[in-house]
């Protein structure tokens, strides 16, 4: 095993071990924090396919995160109020079933990613960063001023949604669910990296003309990557909404997009486990620095700056060495 593999195994062990310890020590809040880290990691894993492998710096991934959240919020709020979502032309009812909600969240955010990606991928570089930001802002302002589902107040769901055979209100069981999904997503990403598609996508980032010359269209490769990336981030959004039992436009804000990027950068861009390590560290920082001082953002900022300037390649890069980065 390479050093990076060891680090990856250690990261998963920490993410699983800490809540297990918390379960023994009867510290349910630690389990909630770990769940949060797992969900953020999942959102990062989604973005990492576009950003790390595809080289597409999207500053609008909060749109998919929020769409996933709203898919959960809308379905569950109709289910808890026993009102149908629509009756014409055919009846659609709300639901409290997690698998259905996840499916809807992934499909809707994939469709949004398809539309946004198809337009945005006509541009590149800084223009791509900015146009994804613009689409994100559009959806954000729409959600704030759209009264049907609470506008800026958001939607509260009183009881967490159901998963067959589990009591999702028990923190450890919900954590298990999120952790399992994260592992599945990591396996999927690993498979994608090794597939012909993943290699071509990576090649399109490094040398576009070479990919063109073998007859592949970088635009199509990137669009597919963007859609998969949006769907995974959307799934994370649905889980995040279920963790909080609440969804609001904050999930769609550009600061949220920034945070998802931060997870990836802290961990290491393009590394399979980068977002996992990044999310764990981010949650740790948020939790410990927040208690230190009212002005903890200053420390967070200084730390981020330090990572960007002196630890290029993120934490994994610093620990495992740059040359081991898999492209």
């Amino acid at each position: 095993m390479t050093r990076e593999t060891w680090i990856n195994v250690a990261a998963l062990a920490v993410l699983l071990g800490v809540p297990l310890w918390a379960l023994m020590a009867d510290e349910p809040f630690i389990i909630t924090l770990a769940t949060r880290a797992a969900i953020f990691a999942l959102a990062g894993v989604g973005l990492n396919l576009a950003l790390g492998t595809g080289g597409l710096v999207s500053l609008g991934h909060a749109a998919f995160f929020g769409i996933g959240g709203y898919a959960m919020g809308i379905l569950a709020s109709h289910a808890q109020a026993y009102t149908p979502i629509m009756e014409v032309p055919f009846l659609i009812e709300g639901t409290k079933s997690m698998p259905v909600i996840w499916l809807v969240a992934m499909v809707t955010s994939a469709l949004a990613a398809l539309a946004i990606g198809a337009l945005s991928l006509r541009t590149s570089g800084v223009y791509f960063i900015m146009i994804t930001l613009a689409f994100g802002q559009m959806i954000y302002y729409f959600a704030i001023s759209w009264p049907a589902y609470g506008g800026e107040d958001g939607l509260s769901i009183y009881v967490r949604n159901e998963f067959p055979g589990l009591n999702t209100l028990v923190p450890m069981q919900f954590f298990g669910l999120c952790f399992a999904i994260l592992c599945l997503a990591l396996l999927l990403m690993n498979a994608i990296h090794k597939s012909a598609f993943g290699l071509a996508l990576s090649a399109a980032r490094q040398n576009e003309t070479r990919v063109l010359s073998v007859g592949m269209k970088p635009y199509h490769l990137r669009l597919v990557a963007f859609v998969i990336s949006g769907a995974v981030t959307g799934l994370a959004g649905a889980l995040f909404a279920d963790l909080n039992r609440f969804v609001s436009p904050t999930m769609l804000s550009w600061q949220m997009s920034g945070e998802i990027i931060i997870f990836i950068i802290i961990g290491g861009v393009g590394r399979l486990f980068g977002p996992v390590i990044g999310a764990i560290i981010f949650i740790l920082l948020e939790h410990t620095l927040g208690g230190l001082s009212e002005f903890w953002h200053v420390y967070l900022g200084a730390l981020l700056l330090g990572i960007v300037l002196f630890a290029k390649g993120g934490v994994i890069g610093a620990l495992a060495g740059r040359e081991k980065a898999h492209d």
Partner: protein
Amino acid sequence: MKLRSAALAAAMALVGATAQADVKVGMITTLSGGGAGLGIDVRDGFMLAVQQAGRDDLEVVIEDDQRKPDIAVQLADKMIQSEKVDVLTGIIWSNLAMAVVPAATAQGKFYLSPNAGPSPLAGKGCHPNYFNVAWQNDNLHEAAGAYANDTGLKNSFILAPNYPAGKDALTGYKRFFEGALSGELYTKLGQTDYAAEIAQIRASGADSVYFFLPGGMGISFLKQYAASGVDLPLVGPAFSFDQGILQAVGDAAMGVKNTSQWNKDIDNATNAAFVDSFQAEYGRLPSLYASQGFDTANLLISAMGKADIADADAFRAALKAADFDSVRGEFAFGDNHHPVQDIYVREVIKEGDVYTNKIIATGLSNHSDAYAGDCKM
């Protein structure tokens, strides 16, 4: 924090010296980022009352929600699961309250709201363990509508940001205002330039303007309105004329009427002592938010004197009785656990170099809210 009123504190401690379970309070409020001023005021007002009570069976844990709903939910989980608090309080914003309150009260915790009063929590979503010590969101706007009638205004131009609290504000005003509307506008949330809106006001032929633009939006609007030369009378809720931001508006706010359930010149001993001790402790005049924090703490302390927190029903009844000296004078809870109180009309004045408010009229007396009828409990 220094203890300034030791005598009062000692006296209060004697009163509450019966053997009971300790009460642990979790305060989730905004202490960093843009809206930090409000949270800091609520916290300071609350802690002043706690300090003056000097009870050693009351513990307060304070955390910063950064004005983010997901952080607020996370902190509420932490306080309920790890800190095992009995009472939650502190949230400033309606959207954060909507994220935290239903889940917290469903888990059997008490929630005392020192600021936000979204309509669902006053009506269909009311809960026996939820007490609002400030106001229902529509209240100040309703009083402004009533005041506009009293002063014979016939034709208002109204504007607010395009989000739920903005819509509630204009609905509240329209609920009481009997005149016509010559214009109704929803602006973008966070908008800072109001030139286009002011031009429409000028052209509208209105005889008055009602606006709800909290925080920086209100400061921008007032300054630009003053510079535009439009001289229609302005009315707004207290949020844009509060002690914290009034100094930043300056002369542009002079003479503007605003509605509030509290002002520092309300004539009662509790209020006078509050204003003096707040100034002595923190070196600034208290704001509306500080007064609400102070009342919230005193309500809690009064209930601790009457009942044991372990007996939830008795404690709830003690809270409902609202047997404390409010800085607002008369204070009582309606059946939906929201205040029944007088709402005043204030005018912005200058005392020396400091801009502040004085009460000039009463907008609504013994006012409850429009949603109380929907509350089944």
